[in-house]
């Protein structure tokens, strides 16, 4: 492998405007063509090899990370143009805090600067329709970086077409633990104290209120019809007062006996916890299942990334190239092979379906 400054003529040629233009057209053409086949809905990248790249090319580690970021920008472009819905990147592991302070600080300031730049160009991001989300242990991010993070997230929150998940301080075990913890929290909170006991759109308190109102209306109607029954029902003012009192209290009870029950807390049944419950508490809850996970730099390990998401039917690909070298030309074979496998899989399914039909 030569140094970055080698083969100047080659570089001059490749970066001369007409060649650059042609290459760009070619890229667009390839991306457009890839779109014709099946496209993974959710792709994850482990951006490994920045430091080794820097070491190989005798440049600063921080500069390696910078090049890695450029590589990320290029690959994101490819992903979103081909129609990938969700891209998840492993930006920073909780374990990475153990690296040298200099490097951690540099990475953090890089994240800050890039996120700030991102926030400046909200309109451009809208073209991709991508929203940024940050997954991980927020407590570990320093306040100034967190501010930039929140700003970028808020700015792009309205975009629905695509999602960029940045795992920043993240480990998968932490994610699973948090999911378990949250589930336990949900199930160990008495139902009556829950703001919304279920995810149904109808709120019980609202229904109760409507019923009460109807009852009240019926009351008043009957009162208008039969004024002599007035003594039986409480005066309208009194009912209105009671209504106010009731609606001001958070209790969802319509009638008093239920209120007594709430002293003995009732819980959701733990037996109803399923894999889906935990899924919903993962940080990638609303993302489609992970289709493809790419790790560069030849290390064949998951390193605490997306364990819960990728152990089912995800195609995991380990590549030899280092992350800063990763580009469309390395990604293309991966994508085409995935498409090929997908086609094979579908054929097989069809065949087995046909067989089961003929049986």
């Amino acid at each position, binding site marked *: 492998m030569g140094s970055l400054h080698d083969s100047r003529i080659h570089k001059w040629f490749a*970066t001369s405007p007409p060649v650059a233009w042609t290459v760009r057209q070619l890229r667009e053409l*390839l991306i457009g*063509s890839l779109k014709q086949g099946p496209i993974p809905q959710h792709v994850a990248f482990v951006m490994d090899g920045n430091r080794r790249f820097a070491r190989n090319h005798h440049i600063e580690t921080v500069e390696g990370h910078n090049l890695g970021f450029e590589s990320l920008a290029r690959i994101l472009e490819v992903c*979103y143009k081909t129609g990938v819905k969700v891209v998840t990147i492993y930006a920073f592991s909780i374990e990475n805090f153990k690296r040298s302070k200099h490097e951690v600080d540099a990475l953090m300031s890089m994240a800050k600067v890039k996120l700030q730049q991102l926030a400046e160009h909200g309109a451009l991001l809208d073209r991709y329709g991508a929203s940024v989300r940050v997954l991980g242990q927020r407590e570990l991010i320093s306040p100034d970086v967190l501010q930039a993070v929140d700003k970028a997230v808020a700015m792009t929150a309205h975009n*629905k077409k695509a999602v960029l998940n940045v795992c920043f301080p993240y480990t998968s075990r932490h994610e699973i633990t948090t999911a378990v913890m949250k*589930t336990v*929290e949900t199930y*160990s909170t008495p139902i009556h104290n829950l703001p919304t006991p279920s995810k149904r759109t109808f709120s019980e308190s609202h229904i109760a209120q409507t019923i009460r109102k109807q009852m009240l209306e019926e009351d008043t109607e009957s009162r208008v019809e039969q004024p002599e029954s007035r003594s039986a029902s409480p005066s309208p003012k009194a009912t209105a007062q009671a209504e106010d009192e009731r609606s001001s209290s958070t209790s969802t009870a319509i009638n008093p006996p239920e209120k007594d029950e709430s002293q003995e807390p009732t819980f959701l049944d733990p037996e109803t916890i399923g894999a889906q419950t935990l899924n919903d508490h993962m940080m990638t809850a609303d993302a489609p299942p992970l289709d493809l996970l790419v790790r560069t730099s030849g290390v064949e390990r998951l390193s605490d990334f997306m364990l819960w998401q*990728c152990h089912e039917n995800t195609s*995991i690909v380990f590549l030899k190239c280092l992350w800063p070298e990763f580009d469309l030309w390395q990604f293309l074979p991966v994508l085409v092979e995935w498409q090929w496998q997908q086609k094979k899989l579908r054929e097989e399914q069809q065949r087995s379906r046909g067989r089961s039909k003929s049986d």
Partner: protein
Amino acid sequence: MAARGTTPQQEIAFRRGTLHGKQLDAKQREELLKPFLPAEPTSSDEAKAARRRRASLKSKPKSKRHGPVKTFLYFAIYHFIALLFSIFFRFRRAYRLVRGKLISLLKYHHRTPEFIAHDVKNLVKLPKHLSVIVEYQEDDGSQGTAGLEGLVNDVCEIAAWAASAGIPLLSVYERTGVLKNYLPQTHASIWNTLEAYFGARRKPTLSLRAPHLSSYSPPNTPPQTAELNGDDLKEDRQHLTVLLLSEHDGRDTIVDLTRTLAEMAQKGDVHQEQINMELIDAQLNDHVSSEPDLLILFSPTVQLKGYPPWQLRLTEIFHLPDNKGVNYQVFLRALYNFAKVEMRLGR
């Protein structure tokens, strides 16, 4: 490096945010990026309407340009690429198949533990806990590896290799967990295979277990004897533990743990703050398995098929591209890869 389609000026501009030595502000940067961006979003109705309005106002043929011709071009190129790559994949598979066969010819173990021990002699580090993923194939009995018999056969062979290489703990993952129903029979089969490899006197002691089921080691082979007796015997008769895992030990077990914790929390036995990574790790470690050092896949691609997720954290994952079925060379190459040693074919 070269094929990015940007000129040096643009590259510097993107990298440093300067053009001709001048610092750019946000607007100038946006101008610079314009040609690289995709078309304006068409998903939202608003944008669509705006675009239609603009198109009807200004240039009607412009919207036509992205029409059938380009679509056809994309279509053609897509199929061309697909064809090209499928030819490439087939050739690559054929090449790898031949290479694999050659290696397995050169490195055959002859069912002799000494050969295997010799093969791994130069490796500086061996996994303490090896894990493999095997598959239960219902039909497709082209190589006699189908059904329960084929599966047991695979497990026996792998166990024998692991014992010969000196690996003390082997966990076998099989999605359906069918072997868990036949613990005694599986134990007997592995036992026989070990005998065939090592001979009756030197065969290692064996215990077979599965999560939630008690360990199975028949009375005539108590696992402790090797440790209790003298050192020389211990060296001779090593102990192999085989652990059977299935899909149930993955997500379902974590779900079970959550249920238990939720129940305990409802009774007030456990507080939310007490649930941490160490607790979960300890529970899963004790009840399912520890983290394997090396995971070997015998499938052509890396798909984990429901392998317990928690345990996979730092596990080295090895697979031989385009390999199909259990064979010794995959096992050996995985060990070489794990020890970061280049495998030499000539001896």
